[in-house]
């Protein structure tokens, strides 16, 4: 199948989800997968293309959620609240980036982890602003162009549009000269400097891009749940999205999406049938590392190619005999 045909088929499948999944519950699960896919794609900009592993991204996601919830509770309209929240996210991303880009590798990971934990502590403790562990309820979803998003299906399409925008922007970004520069800083930062690149600034801008989409995912999550609590900022949430990226395949467009689907489905759907679903999820991660250390998507592609060439070779050999 050619590439445009594959893209068209994928779009058709995504656009028709509410028609064939049968129940609004599954439509909601599909929305959740898309929201987490946006988040995982955003983190993948850093993990996959910049080689910077963040364990604090739930902090940026959570700032988006909280800012939106707080502004809505304060009586702002949906559009201004969302725009202001995005601005705040960009600011927070800049602060995160300036602090964490003092290091790379494990140092970067630890700084982001500490930042995330500090934000979590603030959300928990700064009760007058965040409501503490009770969180903040959001009482309405927006109605862009007069379309109310209260039902599962309209909200799914709203999420799908933003998801496609995220995927599109990632695809353009990855194929662009700047994307190539970013990948260069991942593989040979020292060489990149010698070639005249400003490695720090490239990483900084990539961080902003990653933070922006993390924040968008956070806004969607807030609207989806109509509720925010410190849980969204917890270390577990940062680890979860990182696991999505790694298990799906870093540095690919489809990998984080597959990883998000895997985790969301395990957590929400499979957990209804398998009591020890945490055990199974852990085992799946370990199995991925054993059989497809590069991640689900690249690993499956490799397996498929191997099978395909094997199948084509087998009859050819038979004919020679």
């Amino acid at each position, binding site marked *: 199948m050619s590439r445009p045909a594959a893209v068209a088929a994928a779009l058709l499948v995504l656009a028709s989800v509410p028609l064939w999944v049968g129940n609004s519950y599954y439509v909601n699960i599909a929305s959740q997968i898309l929201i987490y896919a946006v988040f995982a794609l955003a983190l993948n900009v850093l993990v996959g293309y910049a080689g910077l592993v963040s364990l604090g991204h739930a902090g940026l996601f959570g700032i988006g959620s909280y800012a939106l919830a707080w502004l809505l509770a304060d009586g702002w309209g949906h559009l201004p609240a969302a725009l202001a929240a995005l601005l705040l996210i960009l600011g927070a991303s800049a602060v995160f980036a300036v602090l964490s880009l003092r290091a790379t590798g494990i140092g970067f990971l630890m700084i982001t982890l500490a930042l995330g934990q500090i934000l979590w502590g603030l959300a928990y403790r700064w009760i007058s602003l965040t409501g503490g562990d009770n969180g903040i309820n959001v009482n309405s979803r927006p109605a862009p162009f007069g379309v109310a998003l209260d039902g599962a299906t309209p909200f799914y399409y709203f999420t799908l549009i933003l998801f496609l925008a995220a995927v599109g922007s990632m695809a353009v970004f990855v194929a662009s000269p700047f994307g190539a520069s970013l990948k260069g800083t991942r593989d040979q930062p020292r060489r990149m400097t010698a070639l005249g690149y400003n490695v720090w600034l490239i990483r900084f801008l990539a961080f902003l891009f990653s933070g922006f989409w993390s924040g968008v995912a956070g806004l969607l999550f807030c609207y989806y749940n109509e509720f925010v609590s410190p849980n969204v900022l917890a270390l577990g949430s940062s680890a979860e999205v990182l696991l999505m990226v790694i298990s799906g395949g870093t540095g690919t467009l489809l990998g984080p999406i597959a990883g998000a689907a895997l985790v969301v489905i395990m957590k929400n759907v499979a957990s209804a049938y398998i009591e020890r679903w945490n*055990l199974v999820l852990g085992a799946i991660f370990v199995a991925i590392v054993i059989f497809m250390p590069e991640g689900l998507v690249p690993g499956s592609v490799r397996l498929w190619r191997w099978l395909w060439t094997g199948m084509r070779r087998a009859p050819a050999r038979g004919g020679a005999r």
Partner: protein
Amino acid sequence: MSQWLLLGVNSVSLGGLLFLLSAGFSLIFGLMRIPNLTHGSFFMLGAYFGVTLLQLGWNFWLAALVAAVGIAAVGGVIERLLLRRLAGQELAQVLVTLGLSFMIADLCLMVWGGDPIPFDAPPGLRGALPIASIVFPTYRLVVVVIAVVIAAALWLLLERTRLGAMIRAGVDDEAMARVTGIRVSRIFTIVFCLGAAVAGFAGVIGGPILSVYPGLDGDMLPLALIVVILGGTGSLLGALLGSLIIGFLYNYGQVLFPELAYIILFLPMLLILLFRPQGLFGRHVP
């Protein structure tokens, strides 16, 4: 006055426990560059092993040693079967160690249930001792002694034995160690088992203070991370001093700055990372 003295003594005691918790993490991280996110699980699993043996009527110290051996075996299997093939692949290491920690946590819940299980300190160490104007639980003082003994044993192992020399060579320069004919792969297994064993041992030793419950793993892992960041990786002295500092910070911080309770440990960790990335006593930048 006596409150501050109590906090001081307790800081040292908590520091001792934190050292037992983080020494293994530091060794593994320093030598193998593996951020072993199952370390908290090793601690918890050790505590569960220990409490099970205690319930069978075993002697406390014997239970602690056997639990340590058991966790060493678990660690050995994980290193040989999984981590072995992932050298240098940090992301795969993160995935597999987190995946394992999910599995261990859920298995513990399955086997030992959700209720917290209390530990008794060994008989004879259960009371309290008077120190100047305060009384302090005897067992907590014993923890300090255990930490010192383990620290001394690890120090002797690292500084005075051939194995230790090889481990140190590996910490300083893996490639160089390989060139000089050291069988790095075997050293890795030994260090991983050793680190796991100390964590499992610490779980039992910590039992009479912390008890054991689902979620103990998640409570402990960040503490180990903080100690290692503060002290510097791969440095025994760093882990020891880092643990003490965290002990003091935790005790006095909670009292003096209750408003900062949630960030009292992560804020210093962040500052260290920003301004002294190799840790207070570390040899290299991680």
